[in-house]
């Protein structure tokens, strides 16, 4: 158990910067997932915690101790690699016990702990096999056992599930989570898969191009994405985003000619500004003909638990999730209502979320009374 402090950490390879000043703090025992597209610097950050990459500037502290200059073995971290990195010439037992062997643990003690660890991950019957004779899931377990046996203060996972097939990935996800509850060591898990991130994380760090975009609990991030990047990266299908201008008189935004009602107080606060408006597909509703936003369906995606209709609105792809029994098919025109309280607003230039109330306005006070009277009216 240890907390991790990352202070103003930068990384550049030669002259190319890959991390631009990262400040993060992970609590002891927390399961942190770092999520981002490939090349965003998430793995680099993880490898810097592990001690496999030099820290160009800033410092990383584990358990209150600055580790910048420490060798990986002195940091108390264990790591599970994406391709498992099992030692091909050693048996499962040899793989699991290698760290102890290096540390000079006596053979009897080593064997006892290997057996114990193998049992945790369900490998007790495979100890004499070579990695080549194991399935993908079993190799994954060996990699985890190899990390567990060291009783590390910190677990580091570098996209450990991306080489597994979809079904196994779900199983292993659950196992990792269970394991975390059992061992409750601080875990840092890097992935590009947002479902994995949402399901595993106590706290989620979203990264893009060497910056931290947002840190928070998964649901908070889902509900209040801090930027258009986060908004489109979290959630599937991705949030619909469109650039438009606020019309304060009618309290609407224009989308492909149709007027979409928004909260008048928001309209007032953002009057005349160009903004990016976002709505999640699962918040769009089908409504009766002639109301809301007309959309001609390009194709319908069956998900089983529901259907996603794909259309083009104002030249942009637009998706809406509907119930599995909704009577829609390609070529139909449907009418969509976009509930105002589900709309997200982002600055058109910076892409950052516009939070309400806006600082320096007195609308905060006004809003309390206004929303009760007007809100429902606009909705229906």
């Amino acid at each position, binding site marked *: 158990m240890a907390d991790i402090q990352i202070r103003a950490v930068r990384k550049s390879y030669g002259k190319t910067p890959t991390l631009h000043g990262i400040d993060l703090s992970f609590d002891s025992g927390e399961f942190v997932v770092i999520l981002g597209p490939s090349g965003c610097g998430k793995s680099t950050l993880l490898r810097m915690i592990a001690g*496999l990459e030099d820290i160009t500037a800033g410092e990383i502290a584990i358990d209150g101790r600055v580790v910048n200059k420490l060798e990986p073995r002195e940091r108390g971290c264990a790591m599970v690699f994406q*391709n498992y*990195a099992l030692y091909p*010439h050693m048996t499962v037992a040899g793989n699991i016990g*290698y*760290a102890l062997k*290096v*540390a000079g643990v006596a053979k009897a003690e080593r064997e006892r702990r290997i057996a114990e660890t193998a049992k945790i991950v369900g490998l007790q019957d495979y100890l004499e096999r070579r990695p080549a004779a194991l399935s993908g899931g079993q190799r994954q377990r060996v990699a985890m056992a190899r990390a567990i046996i060291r009783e590390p203060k910190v677990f580091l996972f570098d996209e450990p599930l991306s080489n597994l097939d979809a079904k196994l990935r779900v199983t292993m996800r659950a196992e990792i989570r269970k394991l975390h509850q059992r061992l409750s060591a601080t875990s840092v898990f890097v992935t590009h898969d947002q479902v994995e991130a949402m399901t595993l994380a106590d706290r989620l760090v979203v990264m893009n191009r060497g910056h931290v975009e947002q840190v928070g609990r998964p649901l908070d991030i889902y509900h209040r994405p801090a930027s258009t990047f986060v908004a489109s990266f979290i959630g599937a299908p991705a949030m619909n985003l469109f650039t438009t201008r606020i019309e304060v008189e009618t309290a609407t935004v224009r989308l492909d000619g149709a007027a979409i009602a928004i909260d008048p107080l928001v309209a007032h606060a953002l009057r005349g500004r160009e903004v990016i408006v976002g709505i999640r597909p699962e918040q769009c509703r089908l409504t009766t003909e002639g109301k809301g936003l007309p959309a001609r369906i390009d194709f319908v995606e069956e998900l089983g638990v529901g259907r996603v209709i794909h259309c083009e609105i104002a030249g942009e792809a637009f998706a809406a999730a509907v119930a599995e029994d909704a009577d829609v098919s390609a070529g139909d025109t449907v009418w969509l209502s976009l509930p105002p309280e589900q709309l997200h607003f982002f600055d058109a230039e910076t892409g950052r979320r516009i939070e309400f109330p806006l600082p320096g306005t007195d609308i905060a006070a006004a809003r309390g009374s206004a929303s009760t009277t007007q809100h429902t009216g606009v909705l229906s």
Partner: protein
Amino acid sequence: MIQRTPYADAFTYAIMVIGFLLLLGPFLVVLAGASQTMPQVNAVPFSFLPQGEFMKNASAAWARADLGTAMTNSLIMAALVTAGKVALSACTAFAIVFFRTPLKHVFFWSVFITLMLPLEVRVVPTYAVAADLFQPIKSILGFFGLEIGIEWNLLNSYAGLTLPLIATATGTFLYRQFFMTLPDELAEAARMDGSGSVRFFFDMLLPLSRTNMLALTTIMFVYGWNQYLWPLLMVTDPSYKTLMMSLLALLPSDNGIPDWNVTLAGSLIIMAPPVIVVAVLQRWFVRGLVSSEK
């Protein structure tokens, strides 16, 4: 292949059989000649039929060229060259591939350049160094006006026979090639497990390199065994003679009796060990050859 065509197949077999006769024919001639009596071996036209005289011819050849001593020396030389190459090039490749140091480029290029110039074109000064190992140091000191009185002569010694042959790049690149194919995470995982570089070398790299070592062993054995020019220059003391040097001693004397059956039997003894190695370990030999060249 996809579809079979009888004419093309027949033609293919014809080519393979002709190739077989051309490449294996000489072996058959040597085998037949080595087992014949002197009149038989000199008969025109030559008979490809083997006779029963091989052991007699072989022992005559053995005695004529003192093949016993030479065989021992050749074995020692081939073994030393092989062992030295297998060990040293693994170390060098390790230094080149797994360390973050600008020196590795210096190492790489200084080894790489040795591929270009075979012993034959630098044989005279190499001989001079072997005659006195300290000659380079002496020359450099001499340049500054210093003189030292030490001398270390490698002529007529196993060290002299083998060390200059180990000073080439072949094996280094074979290992390097292999090391480059190992995933980076392997070394990183070992590092996370607390293993240092030396430990990684012995616990991971060497066991993983077994097949490469075998491949390198086969080609280096053949290389060491077949050395001709270097021993010819180095060795004047008959007790260090190698088999290759004995070849000319097997020839019938110019105006003497043409006992080619004995010569051929002796040649066969000299050819046999590398041929057996390549035949038995062909897979490894081919792998070593192909991967050390690319």
